[in-house]
């Protein structure tokens, strides 16, 4: 495993291009495009203000830089470095911007969710989508990029509009049986839309592409409900993480619950492997000690190293009692992701913040628990194989695969607290992001 040097970064804005050839990163108002393997700077663009959002177009030809404060979006072309495009939302303001799947349209959401403006880079045309709902996940594209679902709110009722992305024509418009729609998500096959209600009510609705209600699922009534949702890549399963610290998995045939995965603080099952990260005091030979100590040695001395130990079950995990009188309590399953081969599901229970739970979907059983020293910041599956990368805000990156797991210390001086990471599309490298820096981690391809 190799690491690049640390590069400067602001706002966690570092992205691999979808084709995997380039790497875009932002430093204040500058956008740097590097070669993904050599990390040489290919292009340097300067925006009018500090960049707050960055997105590659699907064909990796354009990069969108949003400056929400100014209400401006700037688009840069990789093919023609002198080409430029600047979209000003004016007094309407800007809160969100994204590419359409074809990479030729930009969807800007104005302040107060007044409307979504669809700007075309091909023609002068501008389309508007009115009444978008101000919610966590109000716009969703199908994976093939044909359709877009938009959650709307009109007359205190939730609606969903399905648009054909190619012409921005409205295909379907239907109301949903939700109190206060919170999010929408397409199944990877693009035929089923999952709609879930606000956390006050546990409700998942499944709509077909043509607007028929396929099924609705409700696990319980009064307590706080759904916190997160994830489709399996095969569209076979819908995993629903909720505030009751459980994940419920629905199947795609009957849309009934297959199983309930509980996140108990004590793990007693013998079939579960619990990897516990333990601190390892650095062993420095006395002969290596010198006065004054070299900087490298000093840093290695002060940065504690760690490794994984296999804990003997039963294991009780560190449990944080949630504060009851606060809104959005830190309890329940807030993060969940399926591996690319559908075989594993990684989850995080927010009141056991140091643990990643990896479930074997074939057995519907808990396979592995990674107990970290710090709370989990982010985890992401390798897009090609069942391999999970985890970061905890330390300078270490953790990798798990069915074969085992490793702790990798990112070499280098100074503090590098990784709070986000993203895989290269080939699964050969990884972008590790801290607040001010980033580096690329190259993994050796397994033969």
């Amino acid at each position, binding site marked *: 495993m190799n690491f690049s040097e640390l590069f400067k970064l602001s706002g966690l804005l570092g992205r691999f291009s979808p084709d995997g050839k380039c790497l875009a990163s932002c430093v204040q108002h500058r956008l740097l495009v590097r070669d993904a393997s050599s990390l040489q700077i290919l292009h340097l663009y300067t925006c009018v203000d500090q960049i707050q959002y960055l997105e590659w177009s699907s064909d990796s030809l354009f990069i969108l830089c949003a400056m929400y404060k100014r209400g401006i979006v700037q688009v840069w072309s990789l093919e023609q470095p002198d080409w430029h495009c600047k979209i000003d939302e*004016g*007094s*309407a303001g800007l809160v969100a911007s994204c590419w359409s799947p074809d990479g030729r349209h930009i969807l800007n959401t104005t302040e107060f969710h007044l*409307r979504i403006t669809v700007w075309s*880079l091909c*023609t002068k045309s501008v389309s508007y989508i009115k009444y978008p709902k101000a919610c966590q996940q109000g716009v969703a594209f199908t994976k093939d990029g*044909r359709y877009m679902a938009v959650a709307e709110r009109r007359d*205190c009722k939730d609606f969903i509009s399905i648009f054909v992305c190619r012409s921005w*024509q409205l295909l379907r418009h239907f109301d949903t049986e939700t109190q206060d729609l919170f999010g929408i998500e397409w199944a990877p096959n693009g035929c089923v839309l999952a709609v879930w209600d606000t956390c006050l009510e546990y409700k998942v609705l499944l709509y077909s592409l043509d607007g028929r209600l396929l099924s609705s699922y409700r696990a319980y009534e009064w307590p706080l409900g759904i916190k997160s949702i994830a489709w399996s890549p095969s569209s076979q399963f819908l995993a629903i993480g909720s505030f009751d610290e459980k994940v419920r998995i629905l199947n795609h045939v009957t849309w009934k619950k297959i199983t309930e995965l509980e996140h108990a603080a004590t793990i007693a099952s013998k079939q579960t492997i619990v990897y516990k990260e333990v601190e390892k005091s650095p062993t420095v030979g006395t002969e290596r000690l010198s006065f004054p100590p070299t900087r490298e040695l000093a840093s290695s001395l002060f940065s504690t190293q760690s490794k994984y130990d296999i804990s003997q079950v039963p294991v009780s995990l560190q449990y944080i009692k949630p504060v009851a009188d606060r809104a959005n309590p830190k309890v329940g399953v807030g993060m969940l992701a399926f591996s690319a081969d559908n075989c594993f599901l990684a989850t995080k229970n927010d009141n056991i913040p140091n643990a990643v739970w990896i479930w074997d979907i074939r057995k519907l059983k808990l396979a592995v628990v990674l107990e970290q020293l710090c709370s989990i910041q982010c985890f992401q599956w390798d897009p090609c194989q069942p391999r999970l990368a985890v970061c905890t805000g330390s300078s270490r990156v953790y990798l798990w695969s069915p074969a085992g797991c490793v702790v990798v210390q990112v070499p280098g001086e100074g503090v590098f607290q990784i709070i986000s990471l993203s895989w290269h599309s080939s699964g050969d490298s990884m972008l590790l992001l801290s607040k001010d820096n980033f580096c690329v981690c190259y993994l050796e391809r397994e033969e």
Partner: protein
Amino acid sequence: MGDWRTITVPVLSSDSQNTFLYTSERKTSPTSMSSQVLRLSLPSSKNMHSFFSAFCTEENIEQSISYIDRELTTLGFPSIYAESKGKELNLVSMVNCMNELLVLQHKNLRAQEEIEIQHLKLGSDMDHLQNCYAKLKEQLELSKREIVGLQEKDRQLQSKNRNLHQLLKNEKDEVQKLQNIISSRATQYNHDMKRKEREYNKLKERLHQLVMNKKDKKLAMEVLNYVGRADGKRGAWRTDKTEARNEEEMYKILLSDYEQRQKQLLLENTELKKVLQQMKKDIISLLPPQKQKPKERPEDGLVLSDQEEDIGELNKENMWELSCETVREQLTNSIRKQWRMLKNHVEKLDNQVSRGHSGALNEKDVISREDHELETEKLELEIQQCKEMIRTQQQLLQQQLTCDDDTTLLLQDCYLLEERERLQEEWRLFREQKKNFEKERKSFTEAAIRLGLERKAFEEDRGAWLKHQFLSMTADCKSEKMTTPSAFLRSSDPDIRLVRSASRQRRPPSVLSPTVSPEPCQISQYITQNSVASEKPAADNKPNLWVESDDKEETEECTKSWEDSGLGTLCRNLHMEQLP
């Protein structure tokens, strides 16, 4: 409770006191009575005397006699006065009266004693009963008290229960109230929310109008030049046609998805059907075939089974190819039936097994003891037998050990005898051979003598002939002389050869003797020894034993070697012949 106690306790105590008093009275009475009786019945002799003396004195004897007489007559005794003589005492009747009185007195005393004993008995019985009574009364009191206590408890619990019920009711009411409050608040909240949202929407609308209608100069896109679409197509106009096409496409996608899913399901179905078929086959093969039918028919009726059979025959092959709807029921029914049968079968087997097991267990349990005993007895017997056998064997062994010497000697003697016989046989052979040789030698010597004689004669003849020849030669024919000697020489050759061969025959022993001699010497020694040993069979026992055995071995070796080298035997024989 306290009140009740204070009231009841005195009553109880008085009662008990009363009873006690009563019992004590009763207790005292028999003793006093008895004492009275005693006092009455057994007055001291002195008192009696004084009493009697007081009753009758010299002065009033007449009166007292008459008094007694009167008393006696009233009691039914005959008068003590003689009837004829008036005032004269009839002594006989008086004595009789006395006696009767005494007898009566005795009887009375005895009766009194008996009564007293009975009285005592009754008294003690009474006491016992009284005690029992008192105890029971106490128990009664206790149980009464207990009952009262329990009743009190019950009452308290009931009141508590009532309180709890009340509380529950209150809580329920509260819950209801709270729920009402919540729901009312929720509706209020929802209402307010809606109102606010409407307001917010209005504001948004207004804002929208304001922002959008102002012809915001800033709201614009600056593009250097428009780029082509990713797919290379031009943007299409929005028409009904495109809309229809969009619909079409959507349905296509949905259709393809459903088709795919159907394919998957079909695959799964076929797999499952295969499994089902396999299972069915297995079940059918597993179930005992003769049990299947007789059991089926009475249960389900002829019609159904017939129908099923028909279907089974018809659809056995293509049943699986048919769509599920038509076959489903039959399929599930048949499977269910078979499954039931299997279950029954398995249960039966289980029962059998368990019964068998339990039976076996029971039997084992029952029999095991007897068996055990029998077995132990058997085993003990066996052990005894074995022990005896061992003992006898030991004895035999010891006996053997004691008489070992004789037997071994005997055995060895046997061996020796055999050996001797064999040796003797050989000896005889040797003798014979020797004789033959002797004969041969004799004939040979005779032949030699004869030859010598012949030679002498021949010499003489030759001399005569030579003389004659010489004489004749001297006469005239010299040429004839030259040829004849050669002829003569030739004829004499065989003789010479014969001599040579004879000498050769004689020579070998002398040539061989240095090399072969040690062995034959030994042999001769052994033989002598053997002969010695055989000559004195069992006279010398132990010391000779070893030597003999050694000898025996060696002799055996020797005989072997003789036998092996059949060629050498002659030479040896020759040599042996020489030795003696």
